[in-house]
């Protein structure tokens, strides 16, 4: 056990993966001598050499496409996309090649790529540095999409993703890179298994990635008013661990789903539909969503209005509980 930042926990997971399997190669922009712009790969090139930790030319489609070729050759490429908004030039290779080659070839060609994507806002950044594009990939058959919220999960899940024979989009909550937590290298769980981050009985607050700590804060605040919130950290967006989700919703009968990504067609829409389908007779209220607005990611000075925060989460909690809230007003 050691206390690590989420960034360091990822780095230690990558180090273990490189040490355990000589077919693992890291590819990305500035991941070598610089150690990545978030320092996740700090020291790895010095330790494993330029053959295993490769600085790449600045072309995301090129990086992903080259990783596909390496996978054809039996390698396990781990690609770092520098920022969420930079993944779009590589979108075609991801959805048209990485996702589909295994199916296209009747299982003959495996694509055990891990594509790491720092995502989400809250860091006061400029355009293209704060986006949450996870739904595009969760919508694409053939990809697995996961995201971590704690240093422990970051360490465990990056190793799981690399070991997985399917391509994995690995979303890293960039505003939580410097969160510290205990990391046990021996800790493990099945890839895709959701986590009940806090137990509760009144409302299920369903979230993932950067909003998990916010949801936990909301649960603490709600408890002061006597409301018991269960926080479920999905960890995996494709597939979704509905076993854990259903168990929670059946217990509470009320669910609020929250993510930074835009609401329309987002993970929340899928989750609300699936929960309604699976838990209809256990629901006491319609599922509520607290998400980013359907707008381009705003300038930094406005992002606090865009990002779901504790108050907006609790407002939705009030709605599913039928308490007075921003929509019904105090006179309702």
């Amino acid at each position, binding site marked *: 056990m050691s206390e690590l930042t989420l960034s360091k926990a990822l780095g230690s997971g990558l180090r273990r993966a490189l040490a355990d399997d000589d077919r693992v190669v890291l590819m990305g922009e500035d991941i070598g001598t610089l150690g990545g712009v978030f320092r996740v790969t700090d020291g790895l090139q010095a330790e494993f050499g330029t053959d295993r930790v490769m600085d790449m030319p600045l072309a995301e489609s090129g990086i992903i496409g080259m990783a*596909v*070729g390496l996978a054809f050759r039996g390698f396990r490429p781990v690609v770092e996309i520098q920022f969420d908004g930079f993944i779009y030039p590589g979108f075609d290779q991801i959805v048209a090649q990485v996702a589909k080659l295994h199916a296209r070839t009747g299982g003959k060609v495996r694509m055990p790529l891990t594509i790491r994507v720092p995502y989400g806002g809250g860091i006061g950044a400029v355009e293209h540095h704060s986006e949450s594009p996870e739904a595009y990939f969760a919508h694409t058959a053939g990809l697995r999409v996961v995201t971590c919220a704690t240093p422990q999960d970051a360490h465990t899940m990056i190793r799981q993703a690399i070991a997985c024979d399917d391509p994995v989009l690995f979303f890293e909550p960039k505003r939580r890179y410097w969160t510290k937590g205990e990391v046990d290298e021996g800790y493990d769980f099945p890839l895709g298994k959701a986590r009940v981050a806090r137990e509760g009985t009144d409302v299920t607050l369903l979230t993932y990635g950067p909003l998990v700590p916010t949801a936990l804060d909301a649960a603490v605040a709600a408890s002061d008013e006597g409301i018991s919130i269960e926080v479920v950290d999905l960890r995996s967006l494709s597939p979704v661990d509905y076993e854990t989700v259903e168990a929670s919703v059946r217990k509470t009968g009320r669910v609020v789903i929250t993510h930074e990504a835009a609401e329309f067609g987002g993970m929340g829409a899928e989750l609300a539909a699936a929960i309604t389908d699976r838990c209809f007779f256990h629901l006491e209220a319609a599922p509520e969503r607290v998400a980013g607005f359907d707008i381009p990611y705003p300038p930094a000075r406005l992002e606090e209005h865009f990002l779901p925060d504790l108050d907006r989460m609790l407002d939705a909690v009030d709605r599913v509980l039928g308490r007075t809230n921003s929509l019904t007003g105090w006179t309702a």
Partner: protein
Amino acid sequence: MSTTLTARTTLDPVQLIDPHGVRQGDEHYDPLVADITDARLTALYEDMVIVRRIDTEATALQRQGELGLWPPLLGQEAAQVGSARALRADDFVFSSYRENGVAYCRVVELVDLARAWRGTAASGWDPFSVNMATPAVIIGAQTLHATGYAVGCVKDGVDSVSVAYFGDGATSQGDVNEAMVFAASFHAPVVFFCQNNQWAISEPVGLQAVRPIADRAPGFGIPSVRVDGNDVLAVTAVTREAVERARSGGGPSFIEAVTYRMGPHTTSDDPTRYVDPLQREEWAGRDPLARLEAYLGLSESEQQRIAARADEAAHKFRTACTSLVDPEPLSLFDHVYATPHSGLARQRSRYAAYLEGFES
């Protein structure tokens, strides 16, 4: 010939047998094909006849409703056979969808050429059984795969090389340009083999390139050559040179095989809307098979033997194609993931239950 539609050429394509079947001496390239006797040239000719015959049969099958679509390679036989025959079995090919001649040379089963076009499978064969990936339909995407594979060969310490096949249209794609950047930076043992067949569906090559395509590669730090793509001997020579360069640590090469797509883009296309008949007529005079017939002066019995073999291959192709059976409905869900995916497993079981409802 229309002079406005095609790119002006500033590089003379390498040519060892001219359209009239006359051998052209070339100090540099002759030694590279010194071992290709008339007997071996006849074998290449036979390959091309068979490939053309299968291609013709496939078009007929499409017209008869047995294939959904077919992308004919008519006119490009020399570019494909000449280059593919210059490779070793352990080299790896990444192609587009028109390289049926290359696939034939990689010993892809004939029936496997038809599976995707008949709609019984997403692709035709196990890439690792013939060291050729199944076709990439997204234009130019495969050039990056070839580059990555080549880098992997170096990492593995083997002297296999990879070859990326693509067309003139693909050279406008970002992926192809990125592939050249990456290949140069990593000194990858990859051969970029561009079949400039003058057309990207209806768009003339002049829209993709205002200078010869081969001119671009040196800007990326990649040596390039233009070759008469309808001259199987010249194509073999330049491909051998590029492959040897890659194999011996010399890095990537770029070949522009100048040829002509004599047929439609696919069987769904109508080239009469955009092809200048005079231009096509001129290219018909540069036919890759006709020039070898003139050069080799094959006897009638030899010609008949080859034609009989081609007919036999076409017959086998047709029979196998029409014998392909539709896959089971639930195979829809197979191989989407290599490891179990709970969401898909649920969809599969629900659809299975739905289908069972029709049986009871």
